[in-house]
């Protein structure tokens, strides 16, 4: 057991869909009647299946996976809101959850009353809550509105207070689900800061977010769930990149459907190595070519095409347009093939390629993340950079 704060073994959660999942009395009575004949067909859904992991005290675990992967169900089991169907989860210490912003807030009660209500929900006495009260109010910045019912709060104030309460009350384990999906950039920055300090205080955090950057920053380890099962558990930088790579189609070329009636449209995209072979796995230290086929039916003035290359975390690295070259023209009717040569400047890793076709006045096509490529053979030990330029150094004796 050691110094773990959370232990999960063989956890499974089944939901029954259809008649037995609740409903009206008539449905159940009808169900009884039918059951006498033969067993009714019930469809079931395993929202979690054989999930096991441990979280050491004072560390943060990120949970990633697509919608419906079972992340929220897992949090619900950890917080004991619902019971698992198989397996067991154990937690040590008070569990605070922020599964939805404003959970446990009552609109008719004032800000002050709601803070105490949330404390009570955590099983904290009035005195315990008192000790944290000023901190909470300061973080949320709602001093002047403490005695106003929260139903009169702006959504921003509501959000700030809700987060402040959850993050400051004395829970040894904090479960956070997608709070950062809402709120402005400033608020998100403060939330992340606060969560980092929660970690430093030695508390344990389980964090669900679609914001992978936030997970990478906050959580050293990461659990990837898909359809209720663990795909991978390990260091966040590794798991997150694999998760992202799985999300984009691993294909080296894409043929677009014809758009009837369009004046100009994208036909195909392919990535070729220095031998001219289409492939999605390329050497980092050799140039590669992005080849785009475009079909133009009617003349389009100043037709423009741009290629966007992004890291899998969504950071744009390149955005190259033919309009950068005034001598090039694309708008004449016919089939065109455009080649863009990318010199060996990108670091090893996964990238996605997107295309845009249009003019200054209209978008004709905008295809994000069409193709993903993998550059192999980087210098080990420095995975945290996008460019690898080998810029010239000079060393000479000081004068």
């Amino acid at each position, binding site marked *: 057991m050691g110094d773990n704060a959370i232990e999960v073994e063989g956890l499974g959660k089944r939901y029954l869909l259809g008649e037995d999942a609740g409903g009206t009395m008539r449905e159940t009575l009808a169900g009884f009647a039918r059951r006498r004949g033969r067993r009714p067909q019930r469809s079931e859904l395993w929202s979690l299946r054989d999930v096991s992991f441990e979280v050491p005290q004072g560390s943060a675990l990120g949970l990633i996976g697509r919608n419906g992967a079972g992340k929220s169900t897992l949090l619900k089991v950890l917080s*004991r809101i*619902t019971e698992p169907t198989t397996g067991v*989860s154990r937690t040590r210490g*008070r569990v605070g*959850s922020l*599964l939805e912003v404003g959970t446990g807030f009552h609109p008719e*009660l004032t800000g002050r009353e709601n803070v105490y209500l949330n404390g009570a929900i955590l*099983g904290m006495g009035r005195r315990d809550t008192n000790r944290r009260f000023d901190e909470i109010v300061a973080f949320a910045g709602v001093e002047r509105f403490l005695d106003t019912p929260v139903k009169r709060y702006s959504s921003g104030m509501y959000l700030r207070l809700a987060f402040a309460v959850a993050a400051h009350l004395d829970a040894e384990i904090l479960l956070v689900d997608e709070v950062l999906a809402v709120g402005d950039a400033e608020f998100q920055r403060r939330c992340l800061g606060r969560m980092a300090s929660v970690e430093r205080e030695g508390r344990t955090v389980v964090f669900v977010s679609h914001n992978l950057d936030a997970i990478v920053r906050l959580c050293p380890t990461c659990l990837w769930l898909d359809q209720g099962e663990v795909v991978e558990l390990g260091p966040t930088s590794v798991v997150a990149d694999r998760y992202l790579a799985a999300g984009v189609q691993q294909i080296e070329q894409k043929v677009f459907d014809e758009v009837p009636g369009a004046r100009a449209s994208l036909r195909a995209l392919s990535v070729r190595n220095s031998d001219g072979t289409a492939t999605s796995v390329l050497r980092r230290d050799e140039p590669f070519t992005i080849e785009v086929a475009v079909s133009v039916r009617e003349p389009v003035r100043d037709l423009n095409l741009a290629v966007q290359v992004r890291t899998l975390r969504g950071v744009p690295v390149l955005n190259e347009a033919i309009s950068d070259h005034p001598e090039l023209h694309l708008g004449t009717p016919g089939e065109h093939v455009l080649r863009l040569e990318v010199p060996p400047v990108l670091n090893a890793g996964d990238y996605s390629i997107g295309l845009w076709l249009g003019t200054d006045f209209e978008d004709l096509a905008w295809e994000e993340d069409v193709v993903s490529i993998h550059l192999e053979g980087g210098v080990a030990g420095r995975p945290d950079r996008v460019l690898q330029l080998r810029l010239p150094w000079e060393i000479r004796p000081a004068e």
Partner: protein
Amino acid sequence: MTDRVASDAPWVENRPTRGRRALQLEELWAYRELVAFLAVRDIKVRYKQAVFGGAWAVVQPLASAAIFTVVFGRLAKVSSQGVPFLVWSFTAVTLWSYFSTAVNGARGSLLANAALITKVYFPRIAAPLASVLPGLIDLAVALVVLVGLLVWNGLAPGPELVLAPLFLVGTVLVAFGIGTLFAAVTVQYRDVQQVFGLVLQLWLFATPVAYPPTLVKGGWQWVYHLNPVVGLVEGWRWSILGTPAPGRQALVSLAVGVVTLVGGLRVFQRSERRFADVI
């Protein structure tokens, strides 16, 4: 800050329940502030935007008692056991109003707190428990009026009065038992919500609020006392007004009351693990 980290805190397990779940009184005690808070919240919310506030706690039972006095006392000439009809029926109405408010509150408590139940953990029993409490405030206000009525009519309770709290506690427990039972059922079957108003109306007439229990004859008395509230109202009236004391049949009420409380809690516990999934 690190002193908050409870490395020596006990492990709390969440695993599938096999068989019966124990009533976790210890845990409920740890959450007593939540119970108090939910109760206070209900009271505040109820009166926050009501101009007359607490006045409603008086007007409603008084109006009921007045209607009973006219319909049953004046028109139907029903006996009020030697006590002025208004005082006599108002005494029972105070207890009955509490009972119906508490049962109805407890029954709806899970749905009313659905947002909490699906988003945070707390002992589920805290919700119905908290919702039988606010009615006591209304009852207290109504009792002040009752004292006024007694003084006005020159009536003084006898030594039986010391037993009145016993009947009140009994009413709270029975309301809690029935409330938890129906709370659990309502989560699964929303139909109950529709039916329950009707049930409470019928129940009122199966309880000696507007007529004396002696109206029910002979062996039917035993059947009549299957309604636990019958014994409670009889005892309540007896302890305050000195009307005839509850007879042997009241033991039936007592037994049914205990069974209801235990059974209600049992059903609640059996289904509580599914609340968050079903609600």
